């Protein structure tokens, strides 16, 4: 098993009264609350943490989010460029530029090819569907988002792997009459592709395409279901079976010297759920295209009708934003403790979902300090990672 470390560079330093008063910490919170001097310190610390990962042989992962306290990484290729140059040995996964928000996928292909060349072939390219408040921030139509996602992936993949001079693309959402990127990527035909999704339809397409399939904080049931949809779609399409190397899982992970330390510091990661998810209804349950219309009765009402068997969207959100440390551990959202405990938790989850070949660690969030983060990276890399590396890919039915 491989492991990938990441930090979304959250900005938690918002006065509590502002957090309480605002209806959204994403998309609409004025950026006067973001002090660029503090932001610079955060970037410096986190990039140093990425470089520590490189020293210790722990792969790194760069995400992208827009206009919120949850992440200052609005420009994925900027961080990617820094990591491509400043790391020397580990692989670098972009997960990734939010392509359905970008108007020109060819430009994204240029950015990725450049990062692959600078890193001399250490890039892996992950795609994320995006949604929610990102749509407002990027002026992107939430309807047809998934169509744009796949068309952009197709265009980027062709731009990375076509070497015979300009080709023309006249698709439904993107047109580009003269595609011929320089440099071409280091890896041929192109860096390995990943996709993050939990919904069964997209999971099936990820499976048919043979991409590495990432589940983020989904817990055992949702993760097992999505992996199964991936495998089933391949079987139905007559494609060969895949190994656990095609599956990845992202969780909050923190390793301390003791269980007490691991849990005490690791629980700081839950800030992401408790505080940074607050999103106004227009960016969440009323976002067009985010649900099938037949689900509107559950999602649009503030509370379910008496006798309803499913939770309303409000209740679901409340369940996540008020999750306790114990619940997060029980649901495979947080792996925290001493090295033995964390290894055991990861492997219990591994067995519950049918195995995966990549663990992506959300390793720093909220008010976790630089020193705490570096300690966790060191302990994970030296005490847990060697044991995970011993777990080889296996074919799964």
């Amino acid at each position, binding site marked *: 098993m491989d492991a990938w470390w990441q930090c979304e560079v959250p900005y938690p330093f918002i006065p509590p009264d502002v957090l309480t008063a605002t209806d959204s910490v994403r998309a609409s919170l004025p950026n006067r609350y973001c002090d660029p001097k503090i932001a610079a310190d955060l970037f410096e610390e986190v990039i140093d943490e990425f470089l520590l990962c490189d020293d210790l042989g722990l792969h790194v992962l760069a995400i992208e989010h827009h206009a919120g306290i949850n992440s200052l990484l609005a420009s994925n290729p900027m961080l990617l460029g820094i990591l491509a140059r400043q790391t020397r040995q580990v692989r670098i996964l972009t997960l990734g530029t939010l392509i359905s928000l970008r108007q020109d996928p060819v430009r994204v292909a240029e950015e990725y090819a450049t990062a692959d060349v600078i890193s001399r072939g250490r890039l892996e390219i992950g795609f994320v569907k995006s949604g929610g408040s990102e749509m*407002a921030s990027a*002026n992107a139509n*939430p*309807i047809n988002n998934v169509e744009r996602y796949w068309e952009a992936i197709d265009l980027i993949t062709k731009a990375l792997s076509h070497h015979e001079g300009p080709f023309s693309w006249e698709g439904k959402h993107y047109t580009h009459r003269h595609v011929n990127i320089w440099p071409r990527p280091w890896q041929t035909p192109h860096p390995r592709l990943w996709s993050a999704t939990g919904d069964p339809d997209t999971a099936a397409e990820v499976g048919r395409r043979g991409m590495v399939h990432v589940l983020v904080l989904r817990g055992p049931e949702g993760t097992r279901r999505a992996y199964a949809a991936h495998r089933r779609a391949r079987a139905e399409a007559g494609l060969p079976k895949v190994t656990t190397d095609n599956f990845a899982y992202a969780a909050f992970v923190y390793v301390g010297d003791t269980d007490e330390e691991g849990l005490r510091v690791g629980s700081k990661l839950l800030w992401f759920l408790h505080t940074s998810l607050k999103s106004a209804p227009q960016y969440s349950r*009323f976002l*067009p295209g985010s*649900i099938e219309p037949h689900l*509107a009765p559950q999602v*649009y009402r503030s*509370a379910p009708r008496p006798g309803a068997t499913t939770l309303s969207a409000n209740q679901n959100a409340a369940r996540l934003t008020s999750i306790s440390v114990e619940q997060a551990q029980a649901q495979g959202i947080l792996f925290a403790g001493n090295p033995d405990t964390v290894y055991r938790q990861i492997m219990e989850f591994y067995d519950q979902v049918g195995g995966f070949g990549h663990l992506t660690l959300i390793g720093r969030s909220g008010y976790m300090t630089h020193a705490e983060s570096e300690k966790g990276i060191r302990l994970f890399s030296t005490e847990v990672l060697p044991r995970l590396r011993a777990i080889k890919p296996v074919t799964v039915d």
Partner: protein
Amino acid sequence: MPAPDAVFSNAVGTSTAERLSVGGVDLEVIRRGAGRPVLLLHGMQHVSPDARFLDLLGRHAEIIAPSHPGFGNSPRPADFETVYDLVRLYLAVLDSLPYERVTLIGLSFGGWLAAEIAVACRHRLDRLVLVDALGIKVSDRETPDILDVFNTSPAEVRRRAWHDPARWAPDYDALSDEELVLRARNWDALCLYGWHPYMYNPQLKRWLGGIRVPTLVVWGASDGLVTPAYGRAYAQCIPGARFELIARAGHQPEIEQAESFVDTVARFLGR
């Protein structure tokens, strides 16, 4: 291309929703009343068959009120993606109706469609009525004319859409499952068609001067989605257009002030 004749699937004159098929596109359609034919194009929501203004206006006119593809119970063909698919559909509807000339009334988003149709079609219309219509850009580049209903809090949209929200704004907790499902369909369709540029065609204003049919622009005095000033600017772009305010009404004067709305429209139709 000659459009095929319109095919209504139920008997003419019933008050329940019927189906209308034009060029292979299937539409839910409400028909009401008798008199001069009126094609009524709805706004952000499809027209409810229970809307009071339908019966009042039906005393003066025969109303044909389809739900746009994707709205209400009208399916959306997979390749229907833009306002111009709707405009061309309704041009075909006009050509296929068994009337030489038709009065076109457009509400809100449907007002945008009506203005586009009036620009493109001079020979099948006898009157044009735009009600709190969207579709053009009036103010400078940093002043949005049309409230962004997708990126504004639902509470603020509600406050600005109605003169008396407590009385008229829908309560999602009280609506039936079926009504909520239709609202979700309407919301998705509106977003698909209207997201970008947001609810207007940058080129439309240039062509409004070519409209030759008598035109009435009606506006809710309390409309906070598109203000009466925008409505006046709209009317000034159309040669000879009259502008009328409806007091104590927001974005949907046909709902909040059904009587005075219908009186205003009927006076214009009778001129």
